[in-house]
């Protein structure tokens, strides 16, 4: 990481995104001055208070939205549209409610570019593989509304992985899980990402979370964002060894890093709580969450 190589996997330069409310015409600066270079095989976590623009950044990288100013490049080429090389796991899963677990996992393979050139059998095999991987055997025929929150997240994860994207963009993917399942899936996620493989064989991952310890546990670096306007406040390298297991949480360095990040967002986190309870301060009145 010390030598800036010629080409990053992802490169964000002075990215800003403004939204204009259709009725009132009011301008919101969702994010501004975002500069970020992400290398191949890197696992980058983004933390920050609600409304700081984490999802906005992810959508811009996905190509679902275009930046108001600045540039975003993947493999040296500007991002102009969504593409299956950048897979997204959405905050509320975005599963097709009319499709079974099996068909949801196979959605990209059956109807999108990831399935191009694959026979029916090959696609089926791939779907079954990822059903197994997220341990949804026996639930293939169920519909999303028949699943628990945790199962839906696993379907979304399997769909993401089945499409074989180069870059994984995950928006609070483990947020709805109970803490035990969450710990298990964190380890599993690292395995799927390729923690034990050499760096160049790993996928590139961007992982949004509101859980600082989760960010430290998973990430090579943690991007800390702040709000009003949304910007990158700090980028903390996580110098913990890999592969990581649950025991790494007992490592003193783990606690140090978590504290360091917490110190960076504590003020804003408290302000956000005050804002929701009593909109008294001059800043608090401007805190309008739209999610």
């Amino acid at each position: 990481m010390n030598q800036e190589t010629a080409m990053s996997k992802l490169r964000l330069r002075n990215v800003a995104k403004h939204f204009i409310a259709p009725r009132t015409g009011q301008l919101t600066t969702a994010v501004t001055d975002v500069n970020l270079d992400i290398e191949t095989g890197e696992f980058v976590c983004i933390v920050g208070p609600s409304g700081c623009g984490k999802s906005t950044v992810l959508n811009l990288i996905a190509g679902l939205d275009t930046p108001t100013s600045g540039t975003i490049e993947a493999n040296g080429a500007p991002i102009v549209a969504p593409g299956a090389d950048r897979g997204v796991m959405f905050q509320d899963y975005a599963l097709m409610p009319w499709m079974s677990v099996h068909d949801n996992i196979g959605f990209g393979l059956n109807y999108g570019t990831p399935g191009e050139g694959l026979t029916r059998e090959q696609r089926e095999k791939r779907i079954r593989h990822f059903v197994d991987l997220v341990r949804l055997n026996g639930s293939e025929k169920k519909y999303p509304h028949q699943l628990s929150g945790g199962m839906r997240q696993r379907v979304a994860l399997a769909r993401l992985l089945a499409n074989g994207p180069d870059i994984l963009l995950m928006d609070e993917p483990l947020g709805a899980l109970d803490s035990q399942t969450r710990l298990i899936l964190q380890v599993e996620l690292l395995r799927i990402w390729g923690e034990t493989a050499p760096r160049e064989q790993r996928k590139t991952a961007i992982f949004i979370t509101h859980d600082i310890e989760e960010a430290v546990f998973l990430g090579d670096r943690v991007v800390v964002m702040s709000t009003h306007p949304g910007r990158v406040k700090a980028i903390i390298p996580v110098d913990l060894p890999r592969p990581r297991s649950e025991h790494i949480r007992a490592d003193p360095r783990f606690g140090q890093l978590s504290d360091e990040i917490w110190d960076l967002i504590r003020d804003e986190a408290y302000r956000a709580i005050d804002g929701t309870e009593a909109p008294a301060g001059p800043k608090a009145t401007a805190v309008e969450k739209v999610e």
Partner: protein
Amino acid sequence: MTMNVTNHRVPEQGVSRAAGVDDPASSQRSEPDAAPALPTATKPGAIRRIVSTRAFIAVRSFAAFLALWYLLAAWVGNPIQLPSPLRVAAALISLGADGELFDHALISTTRLAISLVVAVLLAVPLGFFMGLSPKANAYLDPVVELLRPISGIAWIPLGLFIFGVGDVLPVFIMVYVAFFPLLLNTIAGVRHVDGKLVNAARTMGVGRRAMLRHVIVPAALPTVMVGFRLAFAGAWAAIIAAELIGSPSGLGFAIEWYRQLLMTPKVYGFIVVIGIVGYLCDLALRALQRWLTPWAEGMELA
């Protein structure tokens, strides 16, 4: 609605949820149970379960309705105006025996089916077009809004003049009536497709055709089905009016025919048939809805 376990004699396990606490008939039959127990196979439990099913409640309310009708008919005392349910039943049996009833019912339901198919073929593609293209919507919406408040029945005299008496007039009226709820619900369904799902498909490299076929259409389908049931309800109400005046056959025609002959029990008989056929069709549509859009349970007509 939860049942008060301590103060009432309540059947175990909440078997009579639908009947509720305000149903003395079913709760009197139950032993005093302190706490809800597991369902047992004992006889009183089984009887209570049957007595408090929805079907049984429907039977009881229907019996009460017939009794009221009977009393009212006796009080009116003029079978030409209001025959007793027994006379109507006799008329229904004789109409059924010589097949007349089924002939007219079949004619009307055939017209209904044809009209609904035509209305779907016209309204649903147009609804998708208007829902997907703001420009098309801007051009077409004013016309739709202008025609929509005009009742289908308003077109009957004109239709009589253009199409004459026959099959075309009732079909025309029904297509007109069914068209608007289908169109407006299709447009609404297409417009309210969850943008997240479209975005998810885009990130998987789904093209325009697959997007329409595998995202927009299924996402809009529950709302289209709601429109279809509304279309049916409107069309079934309108067909009777159209057949009263503009047709030589069908349930509406039969009502008018027997009215002129002052054979009131048969008039009532046909009215009953209209109700029953309409009810059965709605049941069939609900089944279709459950089969086509099983994920959208609970999305109901207002």
